[in-house]
Every structure is written in structure tokens, then in C-alpha cells.
């Protein structure tokens, strides 16, 4: 009881701090702090556009301010109307043609950037990932590596000298979501019945945060995404660890059997066991992930237990039902789940 109250309190005070778990890296996903080529290119273009619009703002706002101050009616000159000026073809042509020329320049530059980002061919060494949007979590599949995980995308750092970019295929099983990790690339919608692609080549190892950017229903606000950029060797080690089937911890055998006997296996996969459901996140290496529920809570023993008991307590509307198992079974299940490292 006390534990539940504490949990509820933690929920009220503030949602679990995902970023805090992220090794102290800067967790403000500013579009002006890029680490990957598309985001660098966009920042470059943004500076160009900001420069142009900044000058326009200064000129037009300055003229407006000058006009307002200079031509305000002063006491004593209310006698007559000012001279009526009906227009001037030369001046009006000038302020039509000059903006038009600016637009032409802006357009040519924009077109170049659109094509340079959009039309990048996939090099042979690229990592391929398929990200599937679900209400309200991300499934992350590495089709060539045989890995399936959730909500945390792991990619290798890409050295500009010998790039190993990651090409992401985006699909949705339900409604439209949007994949947005601002420091890596611009966003791309995740549209059902349509396949979109986006690529990233992060140069700096670290952890970068993002979240769903297209309104997708009740928990759109809690559909977070973490991208972990590893140095190449570390990424390879991560791949090997993820490819392994689920750990079979003898001390949790009872829990494993209980898991297989419950409805859990209808939706969840634990590779190496009979559990092969596909509707929910793959749990084979559950404990390598920082959060549960796409950022709803830190992935701790206690939170996991609360989640299995009633996901809605941590994330209202989560599609996983409350399992309604006895307190003893709940402990057994949780003790099993935490062995899935």
C-alpha cells in the first residue's frame, strides 16, 4: 500500500526523469546542436535563412518605427490634410522585384538542400533499421542483424572518413506518428500503409533524445525515443549481446513457466522461450533498456512490478491490460523479468 502511494506520489510530482538515466549527457534536443549530417545541413541552411529574414526584419521594422515616430501628428498641425500621394510605379516595382529576387535565391538554395538530404544513396556499409510506430511506443528492428527491441535505438558512430550511416525505414501499424530526434535529422512522419525513409550518421557517441511529433492519440505526449550512439566496437558488442537468446536463469524458472502460462505470450516475444507474441515490445533483453512504456517510467524492479500489475497506473490508456495476478505471482513474474538482461 505504502509502495503504491509512493509511486503515485512520484508520478504526481514529476514524470520519471528519463534524461537523468542518460549518463549526464545534454538532454535538450536543440535543433541547433546537431551531431549528424542532415541536422548539420539543416542548421547551415537555417543560419542562411535566419540571416536573410533578420536583415528583412531589421529594415522593415526599422522603417515602420521611423514612420510611426517621424510622422505622428503633432499638436498644432491639425489644420490641413497632408499631401495626398496616390502611388508610384517605380517605387512599387522596386518593392515587388527585390523581394522576388530574394525569393529566387532562397528557392535555389532550398532546392539544393532538399535534394542533397533527400537523395542520399545508401552505401554498402550502412546499418539498416526498421522502426515501427505503435500507439504509444516504438518497435525497433534490425532485419539484417536479427534484433528486435523497443524505444531505444542503438547505432554506431559514423566517421566522416569512412561513413557508416544508419538508414531507417519507417512504418506504422496504427495511426500516424513522427520520428524526430532533432540533433540527428529533421522529422519524418511514420504513416500507416506508406513506407518512409530517413538517414542519420551521428559523428559523436552519446545519447540523444526525441519523441513522437505527430499527434497520435491519448499518450502522444509519452512516446519518447532515445538514440544511443556507440563507438563502432561498442556497437558490435551490443549487437552480439542482443542477438543472444534470452538468458535462462535457473533461479527464475518458476517465473518463466508462469509467464508462458499467462496471456503475456500473446503479445510479447522472449526469444528462446515459447513466448512469441508480436503486438507488444520484444522482452528478450528487457533489462538492457532504460525505461518502460516509452519513457513512462525508469526500468526498475519496482516500476516493472507496478507496470505488470496495472500499466495504466504509470501510463494511462496504455494498450497493455492490467494482468490481475495475485501478489505472489506478481513477484514471481517480476523476478523473472528482471533476469532478462
Amino acid at each position, binding site marked *: 500500500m505504502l509502495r503504491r502511494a509512493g509511486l503515485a506520489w512520484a508520478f504526481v510530482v514529476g514524470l520519471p526523469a*528519463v534524461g537523468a538515466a542518460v549518463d549526464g549527457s545534454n538532454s535538450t534536443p536543440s535543433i541547433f546542436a546537431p551531431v549528424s549530417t542532415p541536422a548539420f545541413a539543416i542548421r547551415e541552411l537555417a543560419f542562411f535563412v535566419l540571416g536573410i529574414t533578420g536583415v528583412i526584419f531589421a529594415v522593415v521594422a526599422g522603417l515602420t518605427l521611423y514612420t510611426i515616430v517621424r510622422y505622428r501628428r503633432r499638436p498644432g498641425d491639425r489644420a490641413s490634410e497632408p499631401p495626398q500621394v496616390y*502611388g508610384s510605379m517605380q517605387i512599387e516595382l522596386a518593392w515587388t522585384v527585390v523581394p522576388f529576387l530574394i525569393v529566387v535565391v532562397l528557392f535555389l538554395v532550398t532546392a539544393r538542400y532538399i535534394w542533397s538530404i*533527400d537523395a542520399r544513396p545508401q552505401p554498402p556499409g550502412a546499418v539498416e533499421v526498421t522502426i515501427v510506430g505503435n500507439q504509444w511506443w516504438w518497435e525497433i528492428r534490425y532485419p539484417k542483424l536479427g534484433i528486435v527491441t523497443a524505444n531505444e535505438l542503438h547505432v554506431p558512430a559514423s566517421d566522416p572518413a569512412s561513413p557508416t550511416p544508419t538508414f531507417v525505414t519507417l512504418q506504422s501499424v496504427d495511426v*500516424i506518428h513522427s520520428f524526430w530526434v532533432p540533433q540527428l535529422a529533421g*522529422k*519524418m*512522419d511514420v504513416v500507416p500503409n506508406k513506407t518512409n*525513409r530517413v538517414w542519420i550518421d551521428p559523428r559523436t557517441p552519446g545519447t540523444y*533524445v526525441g519523441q513522437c511529433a*505527430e499527434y497520435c492519440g491519448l499518450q502522444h505526449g509519452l512516446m519518447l525515443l532515445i538514440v544511443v550512439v556507440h563507438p563502432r566496437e561498442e556497437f558490435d558488442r551490443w549487437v552480439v549481446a542482443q542477438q543472444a537468446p534470452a538468458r535462462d536463469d535457473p533461479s527464475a524458472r518458476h517465473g518463466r513457466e508462469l509467464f508462458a502460462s499467462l496471456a503475456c505470450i500473446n503479445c510479447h516475444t522472449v526469444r528462446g522461450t515459447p513466448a512469441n507474441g508480436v503486438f507488444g515490445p520484444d522482452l528478450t533483453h528487457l533489462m538492457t533498456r532504460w525505461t518502460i512504456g516509452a519513457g513512462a517510467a525508469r526500468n526498475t524492479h519496482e516500476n516493472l512490478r507496478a507496470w505488470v500489475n496495472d500499466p495504466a497506473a504509470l501510463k494511462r490508456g496504455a494498450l497493455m491490460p492490467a494482468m490481475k495476478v495475485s501478489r505472489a505471482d506478481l513477484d514471481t513474474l517480476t523476478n523473472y523479468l528482471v533476469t532478462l538482461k
Partner: protein
Amino acid sequence: MSVPSPTMTTPDTAGTPRALVDHLHDWVVTVDHKRLGIMYVVTGLVFFVIAGLEAAVMRIQLAWSGLHVVPPETFNRLFTMHGTTMVFLVGIPIVFGFGNYLVPLMIGARDLAFPRLNAFGFWVLVFGGLLLHFSVIGGDGLYGAGSAPAVGWFAYAPLTSKAFTPGNATDYWNLAVFVTGIGTIATAVNLVTTTLIMRGPGMTFGRLPIFVWVMLTVSGMTLMILPPLSAAQIMLVLDRYLGAHYFDTQAGGSAVMWQHFFWFFGHPEVYVLMLPGFGFVSEIIPVFSRKVLFGYPMIVAATVSIGLVGLSTWAHHMFVVGLGGPVTTFFALSTMLIAVPTGMKIFNWLGTMYGGKLIFRTPMLFSCAFLFQFLVAGLTGIMLSVAPFDWQLSDSYFVVAHFHFVLFGGLLFTIFGAVYYWFPKVTGRMLSERLGRWHFWLLVIGFNITFITMHVQGILGMPRRIYTYQPDRGWEIWNFITTLGVPVQAIAVLIFVANVLLSLRRGERAGDDPWDAWTLEWATTSPPPDYNFETIPVTTSRRPLWDLKHPDDPDGPHE
């Protein structure tokens, strides 16, 4: 000032209940364009207060990370209702209400071409508004708890399908917007017809006041853009109830098609709302600068070309849908092109003010704030038209900031300016200048506190429509400042409401032409009689009243 006299809004017979009923009855059965215009604007302002309160609740929820002022489902309903109400039940009625009231007066006509259609359009719109808000009670059927729609104001498929939004809330959204659309189409037909065939003697197209040109343009646009939306909404009904698959992605339908339909309406809709704002300032700025509008033909050309080019820019709302290079490039170009006529207008207004004798009464104050704020809106619009930049900014708070600069800092400021400008004509009394200044300055301060900061959240990666956010994102302080602007704006609007109510009873008598203005509506009494003009005035130039006041130097030879 102390002697009360009968006017339309302060009847001397209001004391007895029987007379009050008669009075209300008059308003309900009226087909007079002026009364309908007033009812349109008042309806819009009532919904504005409702939608504003919804926004205030959202801002309190987002003031800091992890707050639980409202649960997520309520938050989602709030932003859906806020957006839908502001666009369909605030912007449209106010803009078309002014059109209703002013167009016949400005062109020297006695009413609109189809007065009964006009009344029909208004009441259908009211019905649509009530239908939308009835969802709060009946969203899940009368026996249910009720729920407002929670699909966002552009209701993207397939979130609107039965699978993802069961119950009836989405249907209320769909049908309410459909119904208001019928009313809007009726009014647009009316305004186009009236402008084409009912202009008074001498009122050639070359002499139409800019506001009339604007209403003609946006009414024409409305006729082109609303039917596709209505069609899409019928398809949605078929999807939801008859097993069609237009937008059902599970059965091969297309989610992107809804977006094309919606934005083919939705983007020109922004111009339908914004151009009348341009119309207001094109009437207000010359009068308070004491100068003729600089470059009338260019402003007309710019208005019409915004209307035309505006029809081919819709997919810039979809730059992140994955349209591919060629389509993206095309819509980036068409969107940037809009900047040219828009820039022309701003320069023409500046040219009008330049060399004038600027009088800073409340309407002019609002127009000047509009100039600065709309400049910002236009420049952030250029940033968003640069497609790769948009890939970052789209669906972030930057976009929210941008369109609030357009529709609030732009349109709403001009609407307030227009209310202060034409209130004397409509009621025969002036609004208080002192309260007007408080209203203006508080609104400018509150608006800018709230919406300038919103750009920052967007740049820092905060998506729109999230009901809460993580504490470590660096968004908290900005959101807090954003929310701080809300009470300031609320006080400003309260002052405005008080100003209207007080001035209705005690405002200074306006006379026919309090601003020494030049268009035809100032040639008749305030308020105008049912038949508008005793004798239909003969128009001799773009500023018929200038010609009367300055017979030695009429406009005609200069045009």
C-alpha cells in the same frame, strides 16, 4: 450624453417583458444584413472567450513539467476544441460578419443579394457551433459520460477511424464542421453576388474599397476550398459508418489523401481569415494617416494574387509526410512566392503612413502592432517554407508560435482594431479610448510574452500537442514564461468586454462620421437605418466622402 435615446442596442422599450420578447423575436427573424453581421461578430466573440479559456487551461497544464492539472484525454480534447472553435467559430464568423455588415454599406446597396439565405447561413453556423459543443454532453451518446472530440483540429486519418476513436465524439467534430461549412458557403455566395451585381451608381471595380475587394476574393476562395473539405468529411462518414475505405489504411486506404483534402481547404483558409485582416488595416491606416491608400491597384493585385497562389501551396503542411523531392520542391517555391504580394502590401501600408499625420487612436494602435507582429509571422513563414528547415520545425512549438502570430498577432489584432473603428457606426456610440488603450497595451504585452517564447520551445525540440514533458529537456523556464503571458491577455480581453458593455450605454455619441473617413458607410447615420441610405449615394472615386469634403481637389483625376 446623459439623455438616453433609442438605438438598436439600447431600446427604450426593454423595460417590459413583452417588449423584450418582441425585441428578441426581431433579432431571431431578421434578414437585415446589419443585424446578422452584428450577430455573427458577437457569436464569434462569445466562442472566442470559450476557446480562449480552453487555451488558458492548456497553458496552466504546461507551465511546468509533469503537472497534473488535467488528465491527458482532457488535454487532447482541449486543444482539439480550441483549434476547431478558433478557426470555424471565431475567425470565420467574425470575418464574414464584418463582410455582412460592411459590404452593402461600402458599395451603396440596401442589403445583400439574398437576405434570407444570409439568415439561413448564420443560423446554420450557430447550429454547427452548438453541435460541436454538445459533444461535451453527448459525445458518447446521451447516456454516456460525454466527451469532446480529441483528434486535433485537422483530424488526421486514420486516427479518426472507428478503430481508434470509437464513440461519437469524432462524428460531432466531423458533422459540426460540415454544417458550419454550409453556412459559410451560403455567405460566400451572397457576398460574391452582392459585390458583382448590387454596386451603387459609379461604384466601379476600380473604386471598390479594399475591404470589399478582399471579401470578394476570400468569398471566391471559400467557394473553391470548402466543397473539397465537405467531400472529404462525407467520405469520413462513409468510412466510419458504411465500411468505406477512403482513409482506412488497414484496408488499403490512404492517410495522406485526407491530408491533401484537408490542407487544400486548410491552407487557403488561412488566407480567407487573414486577407480580411489586411482589408481592415487597408481601411484604417489611410484614415488615421490622413492620406489616400498608397498604390491601390497594386494592393488589389496583391490581394487577388494571394488568393490565386494561395490555392497551390497547401502541401507545405505536409513536408514531413514523405512527399519526395519534386513535390516538396514545388510547394516550397509556391509558398515562398506568397511572400512577394504579402510584402507588397506591407510596403504599401508603410507608403500610406509615410508623410502622413498619424493619429494614434485605438484602431490605429492595433493596426501598428499588427504591422510588427505580422512581419514576424511572415518571416517565420518564410523559414517554414524552406522545406529542410521545416523538417525540423514542423509540428513543433515553433509552428504553434508562427500561426498564432498570424492569426492572433495578425488577424485578431486587426479585428480588435476593426471593432474600435466601426463600433461607432454600428451602435452610434464611441468605445472608451482610455479603456481601449489599456486593452491594447496589455494585449500587446501579454501576446508577445506568450508567443515570442514559444518559438524557443520549438527550436529546443518540443513537439506540439503533448500534454506534459520531461523535466530535463530545458523547456520548463520557456513554458513558464509562455504561461505568464496568459493572465495578462485575459485581463486585456476582460477590459475589452467591459469597454463594449459600458460604451453601449454610456459611450460618447459618435455622430455619422467620427473619424472623418472617406468610404460610403460613413455617409449614412450611425447606426444606419434599415434601408441603409435614404438615397443611394453616387460614387465618384475611391474615396467618395473625400470628394464631398474637398470639392476643390477630388480624387478622380488622380486615379
